């Protein structure tokens, strides 16, 4: 039996199984980590209980993440005779209604629906919204629609077809195809994947290794986790193809131990692939054998750096080594090794199935394909998005993300995590691709995109990232180890109102020195958040230093909480109950006021104050005690 015949046999079996399942009503509950945080497991139980109660013959499946995090928990219901509908956010009551009204009777409950999954005459689809028009899903296409714990779902959607095709190609032809597609590494730097593979292919030494870098350490990014939890087979297929291209016999998936669900789903996916003969000895009856091992990283941001990641697998502290030699020639245990990011490898099966020309037709000339972003922060439509390269930041924030929360003013986007930078409103029309972002002083990074509004202090965010990189610096290079500490101390002083004007020049000098004197990208890019905020938001730094004022009212040492007597109500005292330190008291006139010395600035009273009063406000610079109106009640 040829490779193609063998593959067709397992694919057809999977298609038949899935077709048969489709005859029954289908409920899909998104139970990736983000869905679970929103309560998806409870919803799953409700559907199961209600289905039992009504004695329904339906299939209830756990799926991954569709990327619409703002509407979690998400549920998709596909009932024969109706278009498949997506509902969210679903609570217990809605879940019960959906079972009783839609599954038992025939009312699709459009009130709770977000969109339909296929065109119909009744309800708009995702493609009818601005987000759907701009998005072009390749590696996220099946996420949230297929059961990650059942390989047949992936097989039925032509999964592993690229592998079957590749196994009949020459290894070098596979590399040529990837080179011709101009696929660039999605880990951040954008190095051409084909060139990396070619170098490793040509390198002397055996065995060779291929490693998937799933050590998503960027605080604010969750694309890799969502892909691992939603469609692990796509990655595994990409890894096997990479291994075949460079003729590696062993592969590793280096995944963060903080992602327990991703690890569990990967383990299951690997064992299922092995059962089907897609992994292990003589894959699909060919001469090619490949083993895949999961290695759990232990939480060190620097391990995203190739050489540190290799040290970590070898059982050492993850300290980077000088490059060259690059891992492609001298990597794991001194052998040629290819290291690719989760997203990079996930594109591989699609490119081989649809061809390099198809891939190049998406995105821009030098950055073809799509970019996956984890959209978070002060944006309405938080979630995972996949847009063609070259989409502008404005389209991403306002069309895909539906704008800023609570009608606040846009201030900046933080792109690329601790290695990236903050881009201001004037950069909104910047096209997103590897090169334009680098020019603007930011970086593609791994794809975290945090939207900041008027309430976010740019000095504080620079301090936050420096705090992160300073803690994560491995300590090998002096400039990175000590320089980031110095920068952090200066920034902390500024946020506490203890800065001086010279500090800004010292920050710039230190930033240049750290960039020059560090071995790996952690140090080389660590000053980026400071440099970009300094160049685009210098006025905020100056307000902190010269006026002792935080314009965004965020830096704790520079603000006071006060209750405006004109807005406060005599009849309401929720703020008093909300205060953890008994800092709020009732004045003789029954209005409330805050003891400034007792206030810990926890924000509780501001949240608790009913929206019709909104009497609690923050002021900066902070109020000095004697200026408090009315004074203290006990004085």
């Amino acid at each position, binding site marked *: 039996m040829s490779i193609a015949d063998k593959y067709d046999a397992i694919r057809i079996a999977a298609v038949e199984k899935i077709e048969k399942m489709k005859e029954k009503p289908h409920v899909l509950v998104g139970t990736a980590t983000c869905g679970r*945080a929103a309560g998806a497991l409870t919803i799953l139980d409700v559907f199961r209980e209600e289905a039992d109660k009504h004695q329904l013959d339906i299939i209830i499946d756990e799926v991954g993440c569709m990327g619409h995090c703002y509407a979690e928990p998400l549920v998709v219901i596909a009932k024969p005779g109706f278009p498949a509908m997506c509902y969210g956010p679903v609570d217990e009551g809605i879940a019960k209604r959906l079972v009783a009204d839609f599954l038992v009777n025939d009312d699709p409950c459009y009130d709770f629906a977000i969109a339909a999954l296929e065109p119909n005459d009744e309800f708009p689809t995702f493609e009818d919204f601005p987000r759907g028009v701009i998005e072009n899903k390749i590696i996220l296409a099946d996420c949230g629609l297929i059961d990650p714990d059942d390989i047949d779902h992936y097989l039925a959607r032509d999964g592993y077809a690229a592998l079957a095709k590749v196994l009949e190609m020459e290894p070098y032809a596979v590399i040529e195809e990837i080179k011709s597609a101009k696929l660039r590494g999605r880990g951040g730097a954008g190095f051409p994947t084909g060139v990396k593979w070619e170098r490793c292919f040509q390198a002397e030494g055996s065995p060779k290794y291929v490693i998937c870098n799933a050590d998503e350490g960027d605080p604010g*990014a*969750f694309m890799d986790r969502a892909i691992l939890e939603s469609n692990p087979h796509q990655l595994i297929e990409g890894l096997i193809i990479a291994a075949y291209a460079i003729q590696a016999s062993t592969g590793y998936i280096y995944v963060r131990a903080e992602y327990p669900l991703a690890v569990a789903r990967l383990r299951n996916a690997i064992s299922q692939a092995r059962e089907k003969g897609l992994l292990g000895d003589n894959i699909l009856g060919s001469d090619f054998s490949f083993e895949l091992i999961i290695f759990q990283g232990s939480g060190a941001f620097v391990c995203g750096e190739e050489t540190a990641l290799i040290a970590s697998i070898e*059982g050492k502290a993850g300290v980077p080594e000088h490059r060259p030699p690059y891992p492609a020639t001298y990597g794991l245990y001194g052998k040629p090794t290819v290291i690719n990011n989760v997203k990079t490898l996930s594109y591989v099966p699609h490119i081989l199935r649809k061809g390099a020309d198809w891939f190049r037709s998406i995105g821009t000339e030098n950055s073809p394909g799509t970019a996956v972003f*984890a959209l978070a922060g002060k944006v309405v439509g938080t979630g995972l998005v996949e847009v063609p390269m070259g989409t502008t930041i404005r389209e991403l924030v306002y069309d895909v993300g539906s704008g800023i929360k609570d009608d606040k003013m846009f201030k900046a986007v933080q792109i690329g995590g601790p290695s990236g930078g903050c881009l201001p409103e004037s950069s909104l029309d910047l096209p997103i691709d590897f090169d334009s972002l680098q020019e603007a002083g930011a970086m593609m990074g791994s794809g975290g995109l945090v939207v900041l509004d008027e309430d976010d202090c740019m000095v504080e965010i620079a301090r936050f990232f420096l705090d992160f990189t300073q803690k994560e610096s491995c300590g090998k290079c002096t400039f990175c180890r000590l320089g980031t500490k110095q920068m952090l101390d200066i920034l902390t002083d500024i946020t506490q109102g203890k800065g001086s004007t010279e500090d800004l020049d010292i920050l710039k000098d230190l930033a240049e020195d750290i960039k020059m004197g560090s071995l790996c990208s952690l140090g080389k890019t660590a000053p980026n958040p400071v440099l970009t905020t300094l160049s685009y938001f210098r006025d905020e730094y100056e307000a902190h230093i010269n006026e002792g004022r935080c314009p965004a009212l965020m830096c704790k040492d520079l603000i006071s909480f006060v209750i405006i007597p004109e807005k406060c109500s005599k009849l309401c005292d929720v703020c008093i109950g909300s205060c*953890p330190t008994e800092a709020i008291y009732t004045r003789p006139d029954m209005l409330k006021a805050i003891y400034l010395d007792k206030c810990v600035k926890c924000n509780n009273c501001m949240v608790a104050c009913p929206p019709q009063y909104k009497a609690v406000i923050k002021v900066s610079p902070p109020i000095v005690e004697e200026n408090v109106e009315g004074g203290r009640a006990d004085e």
Partner: protein
Amino acid sequence: MELLPGELEQIQRDTAEILQHHGTERQELIPIIQEIQEKLGYLPKPAMEQVARALDIPEVDVYSVATFYNQFRLNPPGKHQIKVCMGTACHMMGGHIVMDSFERRLEIKEGETTPDREFSLERVACVGCCALAPVVVVDEKVEAKVSPIRVDGILLTFEIEKSEQEKEQEKEQQEGGTEE
């Protein structure tokens, strides 16, 4: 931290058992100590010494790896582990305020355990639920959009649970007493 009576023997037994199904190559080190931490909740000194002997590497090598990575802890965790996410999105949505609230309520700093070993408080870099910020992981359960008021709620749940358990225990003891 002082070991309780009988704890050392338990540590040695568990460590030996874990070492048994691993090889003695250097690359086994991280998986081994990960497994020990999963079993015991932390990496006690005697366990690290035992691992060093088994892999025939200096003790300092085990210590350097254990302290390099954020995942490993050298102190026993509290009965309830509270991990406050300090990722970018959580920080901007008020994660630091949530951390402050826990510190104030539990009267410990991040990285510490309450003296009664009931709660331990940690910061984590990012749990990957940025869209639901700020996020706190309490005993592996992810709490979304946590406000300072919710902090009180979370701790209160445990307090109520504990006092109920104590009441039940008392009841059982009393019942046991009458039978005698």
